[in-house]
């Protein structure tokens, strides 16, 4: 397949990349833009470790060809939500609840929780479980992930860094 020139909107900046049309967004982000927060976990769109926000929705990127992104679509990765010392509310809740074991799936978990809370700031427990159920965590930190998301369910500030 041919390679092509792309301008991607990532974490609020326009980024130029030259990549094969069928290269999954995950590898564009990780290797070409050096945003390694999104992880490779399965390569089949099942585990959710590669999730990023695309126009505010949590999307898996390990099988999403870069050519499928429409011009102007906003990509936000875990790095775009907050940084050390400037955590987003969801990131802070995950840190404070130790909502992880090894942390490998955590960027994807936080992306999914952020998308949920942006569209529904006060989800019920059932809604949280439904929204988070496709984010696999082999360390099985599920009780703390649930507690972290529930702790934010009443506040209305689940967006980007304060």
């Amino acid at each position, binding site marked *: *397949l041919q*390679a092509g020139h792309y301008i991607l909107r990532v974490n609020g900046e326009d980024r130029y990349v030259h990549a*094969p049309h*069928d*290269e*999954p967004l995950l*590898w564009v982000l*990780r*290797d070409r833009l*050096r*945003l*390694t*927060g*999104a*992880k*490779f*976990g*399965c*390569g*089949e769109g*099942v*585990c959710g*470790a590669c999730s990023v926000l695309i126009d505010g929705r949590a999307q898996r990127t390990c099988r999403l060809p870069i050519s499928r992104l429409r011009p102007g679509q906003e990509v936000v*990765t*875990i*790095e775009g*939500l*907050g*940084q*050390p*010392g400037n*955590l987003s509310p969801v*990131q802070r809740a*995950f*840190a*404070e609840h*130790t909502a*992880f*074991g*090894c*942390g*490998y*799936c*955590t960027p994807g978990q936080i992306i999914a929780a952020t998308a949920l809370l942006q569209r529904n700031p006060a989800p019920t427990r059932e809604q949280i479980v*439904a929204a*988070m*159920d*496709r*984010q*696999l*965590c*082999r*360390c*099985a*930190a*599920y*009780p*703390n*992930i*649930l507690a972290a998301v529930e702790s934010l369910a009443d506040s209305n500030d689940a967006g980007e860094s304060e």
Partner: protein
Amino acid sequence: MSPTRRSVLIGLGGTLAYALHVGCAPRDGEQTTEPLPTTGTLDDPRGRPNVDLDVRDWLVVSADGSVTAYTSRTELGQGLTTVMHDIVGQALELPRERVHVVLGDTDVCPHHGPTTGSGATKYVGWAFWIACHQMRRDLVLLAAESTGWSPASLTYSEGQIVDSQDPSRVLGIGELADGRVRRLDVDPVTDPRLFPAYVDRETMNVNAEAIVTGTQMYAGDYLPEGCVYGAYLSPEHHPSLARLRFVNYPEARNAPGVVRVKQIDRGIVALAESYPAVRQAIAKLNARWHAPERPVAFDPEAEIRAGAELARVVEDFGDVDAALQDGERVLRETYVTQYMSQVPLETDTAVASVEDGRLTLRLGNQNPFWVRHKVARQQGIPAADVHVISPPAGGAFGSKADHVIGEETVDMMQLTDRPVKFVYSRDDDIRRRGRYKEAVVFDIATALDDDGLILARSIDIYQDEGHGTRYTYRTPNARTRLFETDLPVKHGTMRGTSFVQSIFGMESHTDMLALAAGIDPLEFRRRNVLLPAFDPLLDACGEMLDYGNYEPPANQGIGFGVCNHGGTQLGVVGAEVRVDRQSGEVTVVRLAGAFDFGLVINRRLATNGVKSSMIWGIGAALLEEVDVDGHGCHTTGFSNYRIARMSDTPPIEVAYFDNHNPGHPRGCGEMPLPPTVAAIANAVHDAIGVRFHEIPLTPERVRAALANP
């Protein structure tokens, strides 16, 4: 980021290094299976070790008054970085920012053995605790020496040496950092009550910010300049049976981004400019395989029994055969378990490069010194010429105790002078590694007396190591034998060796014994448990589930499982389940666990590990099964290997006791799993009256059992 020892040496001026020689006998005098190094020489301070086992700096005091701790044990998600930080920080009364921890780097860390068996805190953490206290005393002596103050009135406090007679006399430990190396022989039994003084004061992991911002670096996040991605063609069949019939090299070589495709000793390798490109190259090989000569049909139980040979008699006392023959109430059963895979979210990943003229390998691994040894041997070079660094692993659970990916990646370097990254596909991580948790056949026969006491017990375990079964219940006559079978399916460790399987059989059988004796299952266990330390656990577990007043709705029930791991970790898990008779689906409604693994060092992290292990129990009982037949394995990823999700996770309550070995820390990440499996199976029996002799209890299996009672 934690400084390397080199940067400490270069960047911060003087240091004071402590090379410690610590015996590793736990305080109750029991021999451990993982001794810390007891011999060796202090290596060159530039960090160029020349022996595999050497005594090196454990603790380094820097001129800025910070302390760095070094150990070969690695961070796998169990929280070792945090535990090490807090043990050293608390023992030396230093805040977190004055403590650094360097893990898993063969150039700078002393070899403290592999990170296995839930042992890092209980052995290494404890040794550091003792070492830090020894170091405090030595720092006082050094301060007296360098200042001329009388040591009698000097004490160590919060990183300073202070004089109780003269408040003007204060010396920061950083001022003692003058490049010296102190060698201490630390007595591991100096003060048996020191460790319990440790209290978990912190509420967040040291690396929490890095994890939640995606900035914690795992092996795959390293991308050296000019790095190529590599991959091997993996066989379609069990590796020992696989024979290649056809590959299309031109197609693979012409694929975009491909650098090389070539056969080397280890197999066919592709190198390409990106991960997607290298995977495409492997696919374009269009490999075809000869069908193995062995039949495709595979009945695990029959396969395992066929050709099994007696490997070991674990215990044999009394007259088992006579008791089983004469006994009136004798129950004989067989239980069979499934193959499982560890599937950590981070697949096995290694990055090999040449740095400062030396082969450097980064991989999240449980045993970096072992990888170094194997890679050096394979390349025919001294171990000192190989530098292995284990960044935090994205989960391991036994799957990263191996050295194979290190060798595979270094072999790829034959084909290029560029750095190489090898990221296992999910399929590789299941089938190429192939170190499954093995299927086990468990034959058990028990004779009961009139009071519901166990008169005799015979256990024959095929393929298992039999851990955990002989420590749970009392009996005057017992025999346990282990049989081994040579199968094409290779097995490895998974969250413990293989006692999951035995405990499922043992505890299912125990419920059947209780039923036969007409005694409540919890009461039956109370009467027969070997150790009195089980009693409070049985009581607590029953109370957490309000078992005494339990009136189950239809198709709902409670079951219990008991486990004694290695004679030191005791646990009782209770499960309440609901069974949907139409769909066959089993739902775990809640779990309760009461555990005695000695002193709990860090309750927050221990509880994470314990609940994680219990949730794995749900997976093992209901969901996880690697699909194996005579030709190969057909499980390739999460789309056909179901692990527990958030919706499978019920409320979980845990309680800790410290009666069995008071004050002694033990591992806690492995033991809760097996009794959870058994508790779920027993709860299913309580709910629908069906005893399952195989796991997992998939909806199909449950429906079939209900249809043909």
